C-alpha cells in the first residue's frame, strides 16, 4: 500500500511539473501575474510530493518490504539500520529518486526565499526547473520505477553491495547530488535570462549564491568519494581518473569557472554571455555525469544496472537539454553584449584567464573520458585512457593558472599594473623556492614533486600576502590592521580561505601522489617489515564475526625507534549474502603521512600472509585543504550582499541601494 502511495505521488509530481513548466512561462510572456504566480505553490507541492515518495521508499527499505524489486535487490534483513536507510539511494532507482528530490528541493527553496526576485524572472526560472524535472520524472516512471512490485515476494533480499555498506558512501551520494543538481538552479536562471534577454549585476547576485551552494556540496561530495576510495578499495590511492570520477570533476571545473565569472558580471557587468554559457555547460556536464554513471556505458561500482533503454533515455534527455539551451543561447546570446571595457592585466582579465584555463582543462578531461566510447562506437578497437593521460595533460594545463592565482586577487579592476603586484609577491617567490629545495632535500628530485611543492608554497604564501596587503599589515599600526581584518567582508574571507585551502590540497596531492612508499611482502607471525622508518610487527590473524560478514583480522604492532606507535588491524571480510569479499584497510593518519596496512591471501600453512604496507605522505593535508575550500565557499555564501532581501533590481538605483541596507 505504501509503495502504491509513493508511486502515485511520483506520478502526481509529474503532472504538477508539467503545469509548472508551462503556465508560468506563458504568464511571464503575457505579463499575467496570476498565471505567473502558479510557479511557487507548484514548486513547493512538487517538493512535498517527492518527499512523500522518498519517505515511502525509505519505509519500504527500513521495514524490509520484499515485495518491491528494488528492496529485494539491495537490502537484507540482517543489514544494519543505517545501511538499510542508505540503501535507499545505494541503487539505480532510489538514487534517481534522490536526484529528483534534490531538484525539487532547490525549486522549492527558490519559491520560498525568492520573494525579492522580479516575478517574471522567478516564474521563468521555476518553469525551466520544472522542465528538467518533467524529463526526470518520465525517466523514472518509464524506465526505472523504484516502486515496482515483484511477484511472488522472496523471503529475503540480496543485500546491498558490501562495498557500499559504509558510512562514507552513505553520505557521498546526497552531497554529490546536492552539487550536481544545485547547478540546475544556475542553469534555470541562465535560461530564464536568455528568454528575458536581460542579464545584469542583480541577476548575477541571484545566481551566485546558488552556484556557491552547489559548488560547496559538489566539492565536499567529490572529496567524500575520494576519501571512500582511499580507505575502502585498499589500493592506497585516492584518485584514479576513473571515468566516474571524471564525471563529477568536469562539472566541478566548469562550476568553478562559473563561480568566478559571475563575480565579473556582478561587479563589472561584463562577461555576461560567457557566464550564461558557462551555466549551461556546467549543468550539461552534470547531466552528462549522470548519463555516464547511470547508463552503464561505463563499468564501475556506480553502474548499478546495465539496461540500454535507460542509457538511451538519459542520452536523449541530455541532447534535448544541452542542444535546446545552446540553440537558445545562439539565438539570444548575442543580445547580451556589454560595453564595459577592461585591460588584459586587470582583475577581470585574471578571472577570465582562470575561466579559459578551467574550461580548457574540463574539455581535456571530457575528451579523455569520452575517447574510449567514441573510438569503440566507430569500431576503432577497445582502449582505456587512464591516469598517465590525465597526468600528462590536465596537470600541466593547470599550472599557469595556479601561478596566476596568487597574483590575480591583487590586481585592481578595469586596469592594473603587474609590476607592483609582482614586487609584493617576493615573499611568495622566496617561499616557493625554499619549499622546492626542502622537497628536493627530503624526497629527491621527482620533477612533479618539486613543482607541486613549489606551487603549493607559492599559492599559499601569495594568498597570505594578499591578505596582508588587504589589512595593510606592517604599513599601519597593528591595531589598525586588526580592525581592518575584523571588517573584511565575508566574501573576501571566503576567497582567502578557499585559495589557501587549494594550496594545502595541492601539497597533499603532491605528497600522496608522488612520494608514496609501498611495500609488498609475505610476513609470518612475529616477522616485521619496515616502511618509511616505521616497523610493522605482524602478530597474526584472528577470525572475527560481524553482523552480516565474517572477517580475518590481522594485527600489526607499529613501532618507530623502538617505541610503540599504534596497533593496526586491517581485515579481509566476506559478506555472506552476496558471497563477496572486501578488503578493509587499517589507517593511522598523522600530520606528515598516513600509515596504511592491508592484508591479502594466506601463504602456506604457518599463518603467513601477503601484506601490503604504505606510507602515504600528507594525505591529511588533502582532506584539510578540501574542507577549507568548502568552508571558504560557505563564508562567501554568508556575505551580507547575498542575504535574503539584499539583491534588488530596480530602475531607481538610489532607493534600491537604500532598500538593500
Amino acid at each position: 500500500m505504501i509503495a502504491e502511495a509513493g508511486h502515485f505521488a511520483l506520478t502526481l509530481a509529474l503532472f504538477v511539473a508539467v503545469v509548472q513548466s508551462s503556465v508560468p512561462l506563458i504568464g511571464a510572456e503575457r505579463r499575467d501575474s496570476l498565471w505567473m504566480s502558479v510557479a511557487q505553490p507548484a514548486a513547493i507541492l512538487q517538493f512535498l510530493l517527492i518527499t512523500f515518495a522518498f519517505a515511502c521508499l525509505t519505509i519500504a527499505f527500513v521495514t524490509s518490504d520484499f515485495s518491491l524489486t528494488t528492496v529485494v535487490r539491495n537490502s537484507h534483513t540482517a543489514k544494519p539500520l543505517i545501511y538499510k536507510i542508505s540503501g535507499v539511494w545505494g541503487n539505480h532507482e532510489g538514487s534517481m529518486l534522490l536526484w529528483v528530490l534534490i531538484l525539487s528541493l532547490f525549486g522549492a527553496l527558490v519559491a520560498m526565499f525568492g520573494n525579492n526576485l522580479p516575478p517574471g524572472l522567478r516564474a521563468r526560472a521555476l518553469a525551466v526547473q520544472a522542465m528538467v524535472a518533467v524529463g526526470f520524472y518520465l525517466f523514472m516512471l518509464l524506465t526505472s520505477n523504484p516502486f515496482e512490485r515483484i511477484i511472488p515476494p522472496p523471503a529475503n533480499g540480496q543485500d546491498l553491495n558490501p562495498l557500499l555498506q559504509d558510512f562514507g558512501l552513505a553520505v557521498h551520494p546526497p552531497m554529490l547530488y546536492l552539487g550536481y543538481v544545485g547547478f540546475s538552479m544556475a542553469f534555470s536562471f541562465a535560461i530564464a535570462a536568455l528568454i528575458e534577454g536581460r542579464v545584469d549585476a542583480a541577476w548575477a547576485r541571484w545566481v551566485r549564491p546558488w552556484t556557491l551552494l552547489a559548488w560547496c556540496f559538489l566539492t565536499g561530495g567529490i572529496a567524500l568519494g575520494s576519501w571512500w576510495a582511499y580507505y575502502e578499495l585498499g589500493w592506497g590511492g585516492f584518485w584514479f581518473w576513473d571515468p566516474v570520477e571524471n564525471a563529477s570533476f568536469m562539472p566541478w571545473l566548469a562550476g568553478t569557472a562559473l563561480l568566478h565569472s559571475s563575480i565579473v558580471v556582478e561587479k563589472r557587468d561584463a562577461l555576461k554571455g560567457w557566464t550564461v554559457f558557462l551555466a549551461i555547460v556546467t549543468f550539461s556536464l552534470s547531466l552528462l555525469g549522470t548519463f555516464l554513471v547511470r547508463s552503464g556505458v561505463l563499468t564501475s561500482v556506480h553502474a548499478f544496472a546495465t539496461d540500454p533503454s535507460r542509457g538511451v533515455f538519459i542520452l536523449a534527455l541530455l541532447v534535448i537539454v544541452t542542444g535546446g539551451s545552446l540553440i537558445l543561447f545562439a539565438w539570444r546570446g548575442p543580445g547580451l553584449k556589454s560595453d564595459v571595457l577592461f585591460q588584459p592585466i586587470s582583475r577581470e582579465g585574471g578571472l577570465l584567464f582562470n575561466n579559459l584555463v578551467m574550461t580548457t582543462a574540463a574539455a581535456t578531461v571530457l575528451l579523455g573520458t569520452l575517447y574510449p566510447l567514441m573510438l569503440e562506437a566507430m569500431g576503432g578497437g577497445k582502449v582505456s585512457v587512464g591516469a598517465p593521460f590525465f597526468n600528462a595533460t590536465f596537470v600541466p594545463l593547470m599550472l599557469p593558472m595556479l601561478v596566476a592565482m596568487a597574483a590575480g586577487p591583487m590586481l585592481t579592476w578595469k586596469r592594473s599594473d603587474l609590476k607592483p603586484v609582482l614586487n609584493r609577491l617576493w615573499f611568495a617567490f622566496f617561499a616557493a623556492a625554499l619549499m622546492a629545495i626542502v622537497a628536493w632535500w627530503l624526497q629527491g628530485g621527482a620533477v612533479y614533486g618539486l613543482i607541486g611543492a613549489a606551487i603549493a608554497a607559492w599559492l599559499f604564501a601569495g594568498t597570505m600576502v594578499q591578505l596582508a596587503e588587504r589589512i595593510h599589515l606592517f604599513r599601519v599600526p597593528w591595531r589598525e590592521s586588526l580592525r581592518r581584518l575584523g571588517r573584511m567582508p565575508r566574501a573576501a574571507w571566503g576567497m582567502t580561505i578557499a585559495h589557501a585551502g587549494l594550496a594545502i590540497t595541492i601539497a597533499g596531492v603532491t605528497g600522496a601522489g608522488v612520494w608514496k612508499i609501498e611495500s609488498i611482502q609475505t610476513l609470518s607471525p612475529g616477522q616485521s617489515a619496515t616502511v618509511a622508518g616505521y616497523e610493522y610487527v605482524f602478530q597474526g590473524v584472528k577470525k572475527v564475526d560481524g553482523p552480516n560478514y565474517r572477517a580475518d583480522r590481522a594485527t600489526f604492532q607499529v613501532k618507530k625507534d623502538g617505541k610503540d606507535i599504534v596497533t593496526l588491524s586491517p581485515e579481509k571480510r566476506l559478506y555472506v549474502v552476496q558471497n563477496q569479499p572486501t578488503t578493509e584497510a587499517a589507517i593511522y593518519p598523522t600530520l606528515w603521512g598516513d600509515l596504511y596496512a592491508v592484508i591479502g591471501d594466506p601463504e602456506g600453512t604457518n599463518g603467513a600472509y601477503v601484506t601490503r604496507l604504505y606510507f602515504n605522505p600528507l594525505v591529511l593535508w588533502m582532506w584539510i585543504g578540501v574542507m577549507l575550500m568548502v568552508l571558504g565557499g560557505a563564508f562567501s555564501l554568508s556575505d551580507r550582499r547575498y542575504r535574503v532581501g539584499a539583491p534588488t533590481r530596480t530602475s531607481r538605483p538610489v532607493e534600491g541601494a537604500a532598500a538593500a541596507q
Partner: protein
Amino acid sequence: MKRKHKRLTFVLIALLLLGAATALVLSAFEESIVFFHSPSDIVSKKVPLDRRLRLGGLVEKGSVVKKANAVVTFRITDTANAIPVTYTGILPDLFREGQGVVTEGRMVGNEFKAEEVLAKHDEKYMPPEVADAIKKAGQWKGGQQK
C-alpha cells in the same frame, strides 16, 4: 590599447591554451593510451606487443599458482587461446578461477607481466571486453553474464 586589441589579446590567450591542450593531448594519446586485447589477438600476433596493453579473459580453472613473496601466476583464456600471466602483489578481492579478469602490463616473451589486475566490484559482473572476446572466440554460452 584599442577595444579590438583587448579582445584580440584574450582570443590569442584562448588559442594558445587550446593549442597547448591539443599538443599535450596528442602526445599523451601517443604514449598513454592502452589497447585491450584478448589472448587470441595476442597469439595471432596481429597486434603490436611492444607497448603497454590490457589483456582480458577468464582466469583458467586450475591455473592459479601462488608462489613465495606474493608472486602469483595464472593463465588468462578466451576459451580458444590462453596466455600465462605473472603478477606480484595482492590480487583483488573478486579474483577467482573461472571468472572474468582484466590485467594491464606488458608482454615479455610469451608471458604477460601484469602490473595491475583490475578490481571489479561485483561477483556476477563480467567485463564487457571479456564477454566480447569470448564471443569472438565462438565459445560464448549465454547465462554466464547477469
